[in-house]
């Protein structure tokens, strides 16, 4: 059973969103997603300053057998991509909700409208699975 921290929000496409105290959000992929992709070998993170609409492809995660786009759960401007991941993509496998974060975003609007809470995401994963 994969980990689904209660304090985060989620998308059906397996991204998580953490609200940070300064009003920005941190985004990554879930434990379930990293597990189904397998050992990651490459991560492409967005450059700071890029503007994204909700649902835009903003990053790519690659394992040996699969490649997958990461979609921005909310609209906003990229504050930072996680540069660590270029050298250590395995951080996503080891710590998907911590050191494996992919980008930080300054959201265009406050709030988490349209996102799933942990219970709803857990139900999604269970249904798919």
């Amino acid at each position, binding site marked *: 059973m994969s980990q689904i921290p209660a304090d985060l929000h989620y998308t059906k496409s397996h991204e998580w969103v953490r609200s940070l105290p300064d009003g920005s959000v941190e985004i990554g992929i879930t434990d379930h997603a990293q597990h189904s992709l397998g050992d990651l070998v490459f991560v492409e993170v967005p450059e700071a300053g890029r503007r994204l609409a909700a649902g835009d492809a903003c990053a790519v995660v690659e*394992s040996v*057998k699969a490649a997958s786009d990461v979609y921005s759960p909310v609209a906003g401007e990229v504050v930072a991509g996680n540069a660590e991941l270029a050298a250590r*993509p395995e951080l996503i496998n080891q710590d998907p909700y911590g050191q494996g974060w992919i980008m930080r975003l300054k959201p265009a609007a406050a709030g988490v409208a349209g996102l799933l809470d942990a219970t709803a995401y857990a139900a999604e994963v269970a249904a798919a699975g």
Partner: protein
Amino acid sequence: MRKPEPLIFELSQPGRGATAQHPPVAQAELPAALRRRSRLPLPEVSELQAVRHYTRLSQMNFGIDTQFYPLGSCTMKYNPRVCNSLAMLPEFLGRHPLAPASTGQGLMSCLFELQEMLRNVTGMAAVSLTPMAGAQGEFAGVAMIRAYHRARGDTARNEIIVPDAAHGTNPATASMCGMKVREIASRPDGDVDLAALEAALSPATAGIMLTNPSTLGVFERNIVEIEKQVHAAGGLLYYDGANLNAILGKVRPGDMGFDVIHMNLHKTFSTPHGGGGPGSGAVGVGPRLAPYMPVPVVAKEDGRYRWLDERDLPQSIGRLSGFMGNAGVLLRAWVYMRVLGAEGMRRVAEYSTLNANYLLARLVEAGFEAAYPGRRASHEFIITLRRQARETGASAMDFAKRLLDHGFHAPTTYFPLLVPECLLIEPTETETREELDAFVEAMAAILREAGTDVATLKGAPYTMPVRRLDDVRAARQLDVAWKPAAA
């Protein structure tokens, strides 16, 4: 297990060389500013060292000549040796492609005849031999579809429909041609979902790419209906010839209503795969797309042969190679078709289908699950190991690796993507019943092993030059070129 073979660079000693291969020293006058500054880090080895090294490396390969190689959708059948020896006649080998056509009438007669034979076995209006591989044939096909719509001012048609079972090249090709890809679902019985197709068709539809028999190993029974729907919507039909072996001489893509097809000469017409190429992806077209064929094309006029180029076909999508495609591969296909003749073409379909259905029947008897039970196999079929994976933890990959220890190349694994834990198995017509029986025995033995000793199974292979390789390390710590220690 054999000793590892060092890299050719590791055999090198300064001052050594295969000196019989060196021409005499000549004075080359070149300005100093243009000269190479770094030394050339190529290996320095004797001729015997090189011959022994590459002979040993060859012995670390499975090939059709050494093993049953039932790789689905790849048609690994016997590559007749005569095809190679005739394509390597010194006159064909030594001919420069830009020498006057008057000096190449013999070669061009072979190529013209090949064009004609391919046109006839596929039921198309014309054939261009220039694409250098199946993927380039696909590119040519979609580029022609695009050119056709544009020439009619129908510029809004920018979508290519692809079934979810399709080979990855289909969507990749569509993207390369600037098209959007629309995937449609297959039904549980393997046929295209006609309702999904109808929903996907629109004024944006440029065409549909189909493989028939499909990559699910079954003949698309609704092909006539699909043809009607797509043409009625203003789209064209593209035939991916990956599985042409299954229907050669039995039914022709042109008669099914396809507007353009590519053939993999390295599959259906038995030219060698060569460890990954050269391929050859001749394209056939219906009347609507004939003006757009890639050039050059061989023409026969008043008993003489000449190359048609952009001046003869001004609407051509153009040139895809430096010269006229893979002439040497085309010659091999010509020899193959000549030896088989019309009757032999039909036998290809008949006996490849016989072998596939026999192997499927025997594997089902041995306890394996057909992915599409109740359907006839084409020249290939899929078994799914989902039950074994669930019950024993042994995956399709484990079966594939263990087959190597039994002396068989593995079938295609994990393709098509929509069948879980699948093996796509294509025995081809050139295998004996005894070979197929032995394969069934090996599969049955592995199945037993999955139940009794899955740990051993998951560690396979044990008899190859290496055991399972660390793919993750290969990608994370990229090492793709040897560098001299000093560098």
